[in-house]
């Protein structure tokens, strides 16, 4: 009997309403762990399908640590192909949903098909049912959650997902988003309004004393980390603790990345949010960090990327308006980064950024695809192309860039491009070393060594997303400690090196899928603005344009280190056959 995994996949076909439990082989689980890795593997027969093809799976996968007291491990990855980017797509999300899914005896939930009418999927331990949800269709996320939460933990879409907004999210009942790449639209196309899950199966741990020691080691490292448990860290202020830092480092994207400093960002800094909303600590199930912040009468407060993009990126300094924008996105079921960045690109294109009071109605229009909102619902790349100004979309592979200007961190510049899901900060997360000095600092204005660093970090984070753990844990802990936890839970020996090798297989598999769908080095590109225009220099910090030749050189190194051809593709068309 396996420990750490149930060895079970729940397959749902919404076209027929049928469901079945399938075994997952131990070899597959050991090799792909869970979460992102398992989800990516489960797409091997489907990755060429259109994201909206009824047969395209939408996979919810938990990891071997989920359900145990492993720190920050009550998470899941949702995997499919993104309608926004066209790439393979996964998103890690916390809350309670993952924990409940694991408690239902499931490692992965694979949903295919397309229901003829809106439905809710209910999983209560062994019992599975697909039920009509006509009354919930069109309703905001919170209403769906309230209507369903007595049955367990809920993951739901809002109007944006129902109407196919390309950056629609899936929201858990606790307000955690499966965001960025539009998997809410994939769920909406299947006419699946929500999933409710509950269960009572306990997770097993093969070696409890070893587990307890590893857990203590990790908690000790959390306490030693100023980013996590420092007085000014994310446990106290949430990720908006980064607002002041990004301002000070002069790399806060402002007015659609025309500038890199927004002088009034102090209005929505971590301390400002705490003071204005009497913010309280909140977070994912069993997480000791509690980095989410919430307020009475408001609910979840925005993360760093959200405040910065609804703030600086659109030239807005009104904290209450920014918080309302965040809440609106959560209710409508839309990604905050892409929504705000698409508005900013549109604002620059028409010569005026939206006013604070205009944002709410615009978000509503996007979610309901009304008027101008129908154009914006396609994301900045498609919207800017339609307006004849493609250069104003600040995106990579159609995914809008988050709130770290690449001119202020060259590893970040490279990582935006090499990311298999498009312009995302979390794949390699170089902000960790380039800005937050963890595990050790690197020179943010140098490309030296960055190709190798990015490759290693991508592999590492692929593992983190497959355990599934929170990346914030790695501001303190390392794979060394999490490998101990994993070995203790599963009884299978893992170490940092063997895990990074698994991570490499995950990253290369994703890239192979993308290449098979036409992606290559031509898509690993930053917008021209970053090579042509400087950021906002001052206070002794120069933010020049990125040296294009040096960037290209480092990107070429990345391909060589990955064993790819010069155009970023695979020499071996049978690459996947060598993997389990």
């Amino acid at each position, binding site marked *: 009997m396996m420990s750490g995994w149930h060895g079970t996949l729940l397959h749902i076909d919404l076209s027929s309403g049928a469901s079945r439990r399938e075994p997952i082989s131990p070899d597959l689980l050991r090799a792909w762990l869970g979460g992102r890795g398992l989800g990516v593997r489960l797409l091997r027969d489907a990755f060429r399908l259109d994201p909206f093809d009824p047969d395209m799976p939408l996979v919810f996968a938990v990891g071997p640590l989920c359900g145990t007291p492993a720190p920050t491990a009550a998470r899941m990855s949702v995997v499919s192909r993104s309608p926004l980017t066209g790439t393979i797509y996964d998103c890690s999300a916390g809350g309670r949903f993952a924990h409940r899914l694991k408690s239902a005896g499931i490692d992965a939930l694979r949903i295919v098909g397309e229901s003829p009418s809106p439905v809710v999927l209910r999983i209560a331990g062994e019992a599975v049912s697909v039920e009509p949800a006509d009354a919930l269709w069109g309703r905001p996320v919170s209403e769906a959650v309230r209507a369903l939460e007595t049955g367990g933990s809920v993951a739901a879409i809002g109007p944006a997902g129902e109407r196919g907004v390309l950056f629609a999210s899936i929201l858990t009942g606790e307000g955690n988003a499966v965001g960025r790449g539009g998997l809410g639209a994939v769920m909406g196309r299947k006419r699946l309004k929500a999933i409710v899950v509950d269960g009572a199966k306990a997770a097993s741990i093969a070696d409890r004393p070893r587990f307890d020691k590893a857990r203590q080691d990790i908690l000790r*490292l959390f306490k030693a980390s100023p980013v996590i448990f420092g007085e*000014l860290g994310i446990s106290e*202020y949430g990720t908006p603790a980064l607002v002041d830092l990004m301002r000070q480092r002069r790399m806060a994207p402002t007015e659609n990345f025309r500038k890199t400093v927004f002088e009034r960002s102090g209005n929505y800094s*971590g301390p400002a949010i705490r003071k204005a909303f009497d913010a309280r600590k909140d977070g994912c199930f069993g997480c000791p960090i509690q980095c989410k912040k919430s307020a009475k009468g408001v609910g979840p407060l925005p993360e760093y990327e959200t405040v910065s993009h609804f703030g600086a990126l659109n030239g807005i300094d009104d904290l209450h308006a920014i918080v309302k924008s965040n809440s609106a996105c959560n209710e409508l079921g839309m990604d905050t980064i892409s929504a705000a960045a698409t508005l900013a690109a549109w604002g620059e294109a028409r010569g005026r950024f939206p006013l604070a009071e205009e944002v709410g109605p615009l978000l509503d229009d996007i979610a309901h695809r009304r008027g101008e909102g129908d154009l914006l619902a396609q994301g900045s790349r498609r919207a800017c192309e339609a307006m004849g100004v493609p250069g104003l979309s600040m995106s990579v592979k159609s995914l809008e860039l988050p709130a770290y200007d690449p001119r202020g961190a060259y590893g970040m510049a490279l990582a935006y491009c090499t990311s298999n899901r498009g312009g995302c900060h979390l794949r390699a997360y170089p902000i960790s070393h380039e800005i937050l000095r963890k595990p050790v600092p690197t020179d943010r204005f140098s490309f030296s*060594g960055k190709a190798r660093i990015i490759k290693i970090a991508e592999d590492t984070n692929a593992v983190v997303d497959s355990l599934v753990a929170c990346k914030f844990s790695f501001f303190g802990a390392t794979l060394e400690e999490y490998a101990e936890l994993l070995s203790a839970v599963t009884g299978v020996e893992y*170490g940092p090196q*063997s895990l990074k090798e698994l991570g490499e297989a995950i990253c290369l598999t994703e890239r192979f899928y993308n290449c098979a769908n036409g992606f290559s080095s031509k898509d690993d590109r930053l917008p021209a603005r970053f090579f042509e225009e400087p950021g906002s220099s001052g206070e002794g910090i120069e933010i020049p344009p990125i040296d294009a030749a040096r960037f290209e050189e480092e990107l070429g*190194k990345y391909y060589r280190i990955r064993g790819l051809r010069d155009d970023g593709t695979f020499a071996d068309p049978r690459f996947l056959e060598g993997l389990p």
Partner: protein
Amino acid sequence: VRDQIAKYAAKLLADRSAAPGRVAFAAQDDAPIAAGEAGLARLAGDVLSRLSCLGMAVAQPSLPFADFLVQRAAAGEHAILPPDTETRTFLHDIPFLRRDELGGDAAPKIAALLGTRKGVVVEGVGIVAGGTVTIEQAYINYSSIFHATFVKYLLDVLAEGFRLPGEREAFDAFRRDWLKPLDAEGLAFREGPLEDPAEVLDEVATVGRYTVERGLVDSFFGNISWRLGDTVYISQTAASLDELRGCIDPVPSDNSSTTGITASSELLAHRKIYESGGVRAILHGHPKFAVVMSMLCDEKGCPVKDCWRDCDKVRLLGDTPIVAGEIGAGGLARRVPPAIAGPGKAIVYGHGVFTTGREGFAEAFRAMVAVENGCREEYFRRLRLYWEDSSQSRPEASS
């Protein structure tokens, strides 16, 4: 990358942790690079090629303590378990390979161990340490292992005496040749109090460098701060104390800004010390003899097992208080401030020394020198007492 290798190879020699001519580094960018002593460089490259890692340091330590620990280890043991804070927090344990386990090609065996830990002791070769992200990280891991094995060996010798042929002679040579008189002579400190931020930044950087140069801390560790009005100027986390320019965070006491999220993990301890009043400067180093002596406890039958964390007593070593507590939010910040308030100095169990200055850094620096010299003297006094005067009983082994 070559510049980085040259820089950190020079640092290993400057801090006298590696034997001259016995240092090598390897790195992998898109192609492998290795530099240093030919045999070690080859080994570094061979090991690195088997790992997902950017840099690798291989060097023979300037002292034979790591090898002695391997030779003193019981048959069947495969790792050294130093009890100091750095090991507990970051290294966990230090695996080793005995000389007779190496075989013809040691690289695969070393790589296998480095696949799970940050560094390895290879008997007869030295310390092999990886750096996942940078060359500096390999240097840091080497330094941490050198520090941990130094501390562990001194503790073991005190508890068990010399057990190997040549061990006493090597130890005598260490005492005679490697240890240098420790003082603050020749160092220039600004007269305080410092009121100009530019002057503060310069003085903090200068004194940080002094602290490394005089061996009171390994480059990467320790922290330092100055209070100017309502702002604490403190070294950043993961900053090298001898390279602090541009790595000092001004942190307002009212938490009106979070730019100090990159400040030292001991920001809280520094703030609490300043809150007790009258102090303008704080210095925190990891002088080795103070770390060793902090872990010796004469108390019999104490129920506390995890002394480094749970001991709530304030013990005294001479007139210097010793308290327990883990790094950052782990308890150190609660126990050090009340202990340091009077004497201006305190040792943290298995970790290091905090000292304070009321007018400038001179007082703090000299206090740390005095604490370390006192610990050094006491260590050798006890060694003589335990092993040359057979009528004396030895202390409990530290936990």
